């Protein structure tokens, strides 16, 4: 079992080949594909934007309290 919804079974063995069966509720597979597709589309939308849009938000992050403390800038 993988988790409590996905079951892997050995369907057949011939020599050194093993045939596996995968039993999963269809909604599990649909969820992963939908998420993958949504991320693909979002990536494409992100890649399409022109760099000129970025300068427009300059200064929006500045303020009396500044941005919240984040991880170190150092990227090793």
């Amino acid at each position, binding site marked *: 079992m993988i988790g409590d919804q996905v079951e892997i079974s050995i369907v057949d063995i011939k020599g050194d080949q093993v045939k596996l069966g995968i039993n999963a509720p269809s909604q599990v597979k649909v969820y992963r594909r939908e998420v993958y597709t949504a*991320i693909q589309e979002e*990536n494409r939308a992100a*890649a399409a934007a022109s760099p000129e849009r970025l300068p427009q938000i300059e200064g929006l992050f500045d303020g009396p309290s500044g941005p919240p403390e984040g991880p170190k800038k150092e990227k090793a």
Partner: protein
Amino acid sequence: MKVRTKPYGEMEISDRQKISFPRGIFGFEELREFALLDARQAPFYWLQSLQRVEIAFVLIEPHFFRPDYTPDVEPAELQEIGIDSPDDMLVFAIVTIPEDSSRMTANLQGPLLINRRSRVGRQSISANPRWAVRHIILEELALAKRGA
């Protein structure tokens, strides 16, 4: 080395800025070599494809506006790029900027994870249902500041 970039034209980068994505990223699986650049506008970065100059992504570190963020990806995906502990990795979200740039969003469901030592990365899908493909950065940043 000199590279051509979408936002800044030709520029000089160091080897440390080169990141490999052996599986590309979703929808761009053939793009394997990128340069990670600081954007002129903090706190953003650019992930510039070294194969197609017109493909470049704006990135942000999720902790900047969601201090509570953890990628929550399958351990096997971390192992694939040699990450043994959270200290080994950089986490970025791809930013989508619409016409009204104040509505820009970050994809927290599909974070980019990069091994900071080997400079190898991948895009993963978070198992945590809290994270969506579009988080409105400025709204969540305001909430985070209020909570601090």
